[in-house]
């Protein structure tokens, strides 16, 4: 219980900003008020502004309006409880744990658009895996962006893990190949492959991702065992397109939602849920390698609505 409490408080701290503007706002808006048409409109505006998405907002508001007319919802507090229950019920049971290989190294491929926060998220993932007692190797497949390899190396030095790298401007698939070989021969538990940021609209780059993926599959059976898409939590509805396109090109198995501490918009989590079946597996809530949390919808909603 103590552990649970500390996790919740940390999560709450990371989500402070989200709570402050989104939910604290909701609270002060709703608590102690009688439900009426004006309040419903205010609520609609607030939900849209939290990036929940037009569709979900419309659905929620329609429901609230109907319940208001039938007299089921009368006070602001009722609406708060309704939202909490409704949001929680939107996540079905899903597998939110990392998949590991039965034998040999587990390969985790990390993808995302430019500036989403891939490298920092990898540092976080790496730190967590190390804390669980696993050995980790990093593959620097971002051979495109200037300084990307160096950035990963600095993290690796700080975390005490090794990096397999290639030449700046070289073929990322070749680095993936080398990294897979190294992972096998060194007998590490987990290999994390960092890739260059790419916009999901750039077909050739998306095909390159497919290639990196198949190189890993050829080298290690079942690899990549996990393909994570790093999404910037401050991204708007475009995040949904990213999930779709990366899903197609790289077979994304989980989402790492980065920079959640910087946004008033926890709502994008809901929008993602509505639009795709890809589970959010981790959330990033700060700048240090320890600022990583597994995503648990129940707890997420609780933390968001906590006083």
């Amino acid at each position: 219980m103590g552990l649970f409490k500390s996790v919740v408080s940390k999560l709450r701290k990371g989500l402070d900003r989200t709570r402050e503007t989104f939910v604290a706002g909701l609270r002060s808006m709703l608590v102690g008020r009688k439900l009426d048409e004006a309040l419903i409109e205010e609520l609609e505006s607030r939900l849209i502004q939290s990036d929940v998405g037009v569709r979900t907002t419309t659905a929620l508001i329609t429901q609230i309006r109907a319940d208001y007319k039938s007299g089921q919802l009368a006070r602001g507090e009722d609406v708060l409880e309704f939202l909490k229950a409704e949001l929680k019920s939107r996540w079905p049971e899903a597998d939110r744990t990392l998949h590991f290989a039965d034998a040999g190294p587990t390969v985790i491929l990390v993808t995302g658009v430019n500036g989403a926060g891939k490298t920092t998220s990898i540092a976080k993932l790496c730190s967590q895996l190390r804390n669980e007692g696993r050995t980790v190797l990093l593959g620097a497949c971002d051979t495109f962006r200037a300084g990307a390899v160096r950035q990963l190396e600095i993290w690796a030095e700080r975390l005490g893990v090794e990096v397999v790298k290639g030449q700046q401007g070289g073929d990322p698939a070749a680095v993936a190949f080398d990294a897979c070989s190294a992972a096998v021969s060194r007998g590490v538990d987990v290999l994390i492959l960092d890739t260059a940021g790419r916009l999901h609209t750039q077909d050739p780059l998306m095909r390159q991702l497919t290639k990196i993926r198949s190189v890993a599959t050829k080298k290690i059976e079942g690899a990549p065992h996990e393909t994570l898409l790093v999404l910037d939590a401050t991204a708007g509805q475009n995040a949904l397109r990213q999930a779709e396109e990366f899903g197609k090109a790289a077979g994304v198995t989980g989402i790492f939602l980065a920079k959640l501490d910087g946004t008033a918009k926890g709502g994008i989590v809901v929008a993602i849920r509505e639009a795709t079946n890809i589970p959010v597996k981790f959330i990033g809530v700060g700048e240090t390698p320890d600022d990583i949390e597994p995503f648990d919808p129940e707890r997420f909603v609780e933390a968001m609505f906590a006083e």
Partner: protein
Amino acid sequence: MFDRLSDGFNNVFRKLSGQGSISEKNITDAMAEVRTALLEADVHYDVVKAFCDEVVADVLGREVTKSLKPGQEMIGIVHRRLVALLGGDPDADPQEALKTLGTDRGIMKVSPPPTVVMMCGLQGSGKTTTCGKLAAMLKKQGRKTMVCAADLQRPAAIEQLHTVVEHVNKQFTQGPTVLFHGEPDKAAEYGKAVNVAVKVCQRALDEARQQGVDVLILDTAGRLHVNDELMTELHLVNRAMMPHHIFLVVDAMTGQDAVNSAKAFHERLTVDGVILTKFDSDTRGGAALSVKQVTGAPIRYIGVGEKLDQIEPFHPERMAGRILGMGDVVSLVEKAQQEVSEEDAAKLSEKMARGEMTMDDFLSQLRTLRRMGSMKQLLGLLPGVGSMLKDADVDEGQLKRIEAMIQSMTAEERAHPKIIHAPRRRRIAEGSGSEQPAVGQLIKQFDAINKMAKSMAGAGGAGRIAAARQMASAGGMPGMGLPMMKTKGSTKQAKRGVKQRKKRKH
């Protein structure tokens, strides 16, 4: 970008155009759709609300319902409002736009130099890349630029900027070498190098003065607008350096929060311009439509690709046109002007008039075209073509294949393509990895263009028509007439797009 938004608007206009008379209810229904389209494009809620209210007020005020062409009037009203929203002057004469070709309010010149430009923004918005793009732009303008790495937080940020500067110097030889100021030994983990940045910037300024630099660009660390300590650091840099320009770099894919962060930066620093990055994504552009309205700071540049020259000045009037599917011919002409000097153009047209264009001339034209951007980008600037291209898969490789064929020709063959007979054709096809008929087609089309150019130059109206016929029978412009475009969906979509344009012209 803006695809979905354009669709939303087009739907509304189409509906309204189809009706002989429209009621107030028609308008409100239509605006409900516009509202959804805007919200789905991540335009800020308050901005959407104000925009829709204003349009409705305009429509009712002008009694559009009584107009004979309600759809047309609606487009006009929405266009004006969009231009205003994007920070432009809706009353500017569209013809004036042609006179502003190639102009950019640019980076101001100060005396004594250097002009100090400070970049700021959230993590991952694209500050470092944008610094490189600005430096490349200034270099081309012949201004001596120094870039200072004031991001001491993110691992390897200094190295990244250094490499970017090296790339700029390597890729763009014209203009003075871009200088770099970085102090890697001052870098530290997140939050530990706060306030060191001020000193680094000051030393950069000293160095810039000594070296006679015209523009000094400061690349600050990415920070969350909610991080007080780092926002204070930025404030200190601002106070110590008194920058002439403060540019806020914003990711065009940002959601509703875009305005919150922009506001926070603006309150602390009084930002005087916004640079929107990643505009080549399929962002629906909500940030572009919200930021100006909320902060009052104009959008100055947009980043449209990963290459270092892919930055463009932002023009509200042109962007509004693009959103409404009206194309942006002015930008197209401007792109062409950048790549082709008048002298070259005159020389070539003379040559063409004599029917003496060679394969080499043709090749250099193709290359110019490719430098101007991808075919899809260019075609998207033509009125009405943008919406047709939505699902089309433009074969960017086609121009490359033509280039390969020409490169597989000997100098003699290039100068006199007539000598290319079957054995030569076979050799060229093999050399370029293409099929013989493709080579044949290329030569035939080349010939047609040459003939056409000659008769166009020589004859009046009748000759021109004949020339155009000749060209049409030969399959149009090389490359263009070849199957460049595959439509993913049905071809109906493209046809509909054409019809739509026609209808609107009435």
